[in-house]
């Protein structure tokens, strides 16, 4: 058939992509199981007999409350498995894993942004969803995704918990509106900053008693903030200056302090730009000094001195208030950590296990990832991530099998 070609200009409008329509979200990724299996086989991560599920990821916008108590529009990623036995969709429902991502600096590293920009499965959700068959929930956190223009409340307890809990609630609404069957079984996990967020979230959930968590697996998180910061500020050199600078910046913002009284110039002036979500960690590190304090250091000498000498110093109080390692949890908790972690020392998890058990927590256990997996070598903070997530997937699947039946 032909197309007439005349002196007629085409219209200006160009249709949006004809994607699957959902209420309250947007489909970003839709990979069939075959494609994912091929990829995982190619990387030697699974064998031919391993069951692999398809992967559908939706960006879901929602509203949460920031550290100052104001409403903020944020976003998260919901990843659903495709191809589970029909009884799961019709009767049993999907179990949820809320997975807090680790510390990121560039907006393009946020879960929903990765999904949008790559259109492909990524990270821990592949393990939880395509291999584990869970619905995976990943908040972008305040400061990333739809709230890129806000500062990221790094390791701040209240907003870390609110952001995660509000996303869980929004996912329930989204699922109901789009005929997705969830079973209300909820697992919490996260690595590094996500480990901290997991613990903060669980504590708030237990306080409010509105959700029920079957098991939480915080991984390699800086739960005991005061101990972590004491350790960092007492060293002459900073291993990764961006992390502690990010803490300083977030706490200054949330506690209405002056940045120049905490961070030396020229870093005080450049930090808001370095942390605006456009720059990755290694680039930020290259623009910061590794000297902890002093005239040429990152932190103002008086600030560090006051922190160590004045027990009522605002930053010390904030570290204590925002630590998440000392409370009595009723939910089973498995703390996963690699012993060779050079960023968040293994001892932080040891301290957390001892403290929580001493306070009467019902079931808190520290698990060495290397020992459990029978590894002959120990892993560092970065290398441990995938190993820890694999182990968490297995642990959650075991609980689900015992309780839900699949």
């Amino acid at each position: 058939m032909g197309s007439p070609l005349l002196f007629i200009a085409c219209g200006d409008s160009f249709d949006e992509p004809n994607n699957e329509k959902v209420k309250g979200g947007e489909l970003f990724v839709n990979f069939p199981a075959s494609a994912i299996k091929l990829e995982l086989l190619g990387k030697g991560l699974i064998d031919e007999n391993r069951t692999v599920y398809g992967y559908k990821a939706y960006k879901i916008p929602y509203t949460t409350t920031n550290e100052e108590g104001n409403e903020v529009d944020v976003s998260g990623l919901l990843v659903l498995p495709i191809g589970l036995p029909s009884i799961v969709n019709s009767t049993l429902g999907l179990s949820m894993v809320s997975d807090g991502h680790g510390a990121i600096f560039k907006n393009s590293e946020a879960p929903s942004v990765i999904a949008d920009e790559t259109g492909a499965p990524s990270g821990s959700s592949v393990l939880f969803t395509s291999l584990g068959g869970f619905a995976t929930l990943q908040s972008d956190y305040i400061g990333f995704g739809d709230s890129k223009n806000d500062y990221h409340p790094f390791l701040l307890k209240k907003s870390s918990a609110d952001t995660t809990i509000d996303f869980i609630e929004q996912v329930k609404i989204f699922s109901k509106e789009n005929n997705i069957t969830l079973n209300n079984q909820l697992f919490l996990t996260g690595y590094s900053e996500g480990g901290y967020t997991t613990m903060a979230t669980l504590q708030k959930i237990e306080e409010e008693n509105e959700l029920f968590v079957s098991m939480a697996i915080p991984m390699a998180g800086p739960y005991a903030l005061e101990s972590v910061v004491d350790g960092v500020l007492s060293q002459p050199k900073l291993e990764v200056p961006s992390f502690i600078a990010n803490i300083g910046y977030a706490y200054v913002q949330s506690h209405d302090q002056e940045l120049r009284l905490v961070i030396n110039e020229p870093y005080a002036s450049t930090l808001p730009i370095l942390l605006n979500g456009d720059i990755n960690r290694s680039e930020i590190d290259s623009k910061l000094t590794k000297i902890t304090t002093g005239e040429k250091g990152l932190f103002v000498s008086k600030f560090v001195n006051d922190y160590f000498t004045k027990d009522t110093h605002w930053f010390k109080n904030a570290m204590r208030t925002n630590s998440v390692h000392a409370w009595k949890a009723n939910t089973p908790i498995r703390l996963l950590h690699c012993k060779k972690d050079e960023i968040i020392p293994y001892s932080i998890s040891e301290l957390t296990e001892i403290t929580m058990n001493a306070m009467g927590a019902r079931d808190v256990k520290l698990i060495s990832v290397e020992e459990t997996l029978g590894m002959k070598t120990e892993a560092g903070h970065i290398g441990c991530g995938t190993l820890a997530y694999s182990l968490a997937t297995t642990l959650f699947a075991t609980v689900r099998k015992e309780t839900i039946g699949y």
Partner: protein
Amino acid sequence: MKKILVLSSITSSLVVGGAYKIPEQSLNSMALGAAYIAHTSGGDTAYFNPANMAFMEEKQFLELGVTWAHLPRNKFEGFQAYSATEISFANNHSEVENFQLPFLHYVANSMNNFRWGMSLIVPGGLTKRWNSGHQKVFAEEFTLKTIELNPVLSYKVSNNFAFAGGLRFIYSEGVVNSDGGKIKPIKREMKGKTFEVGYNLAVSYKPTTDINMAVTYRSNIDLEEEGDANLYLFDVGRQYSANVTVPLPATLSFAVSKTWQKKYTFELNYEKTYWSKYDTLMFAYGEPIQPLLVSSFNDPKLKNWKDSDTFRVGVTAKLTPFVTLMAGYSKDESPINRKYLSYELPDSNANIYSLGVRIKANENLSYGVAYLHDKKDAFSLKAGENENGVIGKFSEGGANLLTVGMGYTF
């Protein structure tokens, strides 16, 4: 997003030699197979050789009409190789296409030794579609629409020498779709447009009253197509702003004509098209596209086209004061480098045959009809010969064009 490879291919083919080129933009030019530069007569002189306007009678000339273009299907028999181990049967044929191309030309009265004219034409237009198979992965649809407004001005230096120049205002729109279907989980929908300006020059010399010589030149115009693209991966699409620049290459023509007894005219044309400017096709997007789509939609595509030669001959016979017969033949060389050929333009060398008649109704009005047949050579690509994995034989294709037109003087 960016306009596409397809667009460029189409444009090129339209404008100069190649599968669907349509240099014939009037009744006479269609009847003579575009061997119509040295010896021009009506309002279409403004387009084919504006220098000749200087020698036209002292009155106004108007020429208008329409061409119906029928593009038969391209047949492919062979295989598509995606890699050394992924080779599939790929026998298929493209869709038949039909479209219409209007034209309007005007030459004004002279003012001293100056004379102006203008043409409004569709220098190219194509819809090429493969609705199934492996070809759809690469070229589900390629559509190009162009409109050119070409005002020109001539200057008569002497009674046997004149030159002219003009501006070319070109507006074009393109559509490029490809769909991997069940073969590849990728799809694209693209739409773009551009407005560009170029120029043309012409020189005419009449050494004797029965011999005309002419040289014409049309400048290269880079069509920077800008628009949007929806790129899909596993049925999930994302929209990007996009652009791609493709050349509308420069063309240089030499023409000579000889007339006997004021009745019979023979014209010989040689046309050089500078297609070598089209060496790479590269699309740019407003932001990085998804990594898994880069190799298909973002990596530069080598073209390495070559300059092409076209030879044309035309014969005009005024049988009576009222009836003029015309016929033409052209040997048209394809500029495409077969190493980088793809389904959107499986072009090859062509033999072009044409004929037509013009009837003079009265002192002011004439009309006529012309037909042109563009016959493409079949060709084959052996394994390893084509970078896009095309292995097999292309045949059929070509074009059939029918023009009706009328001229009016006042």
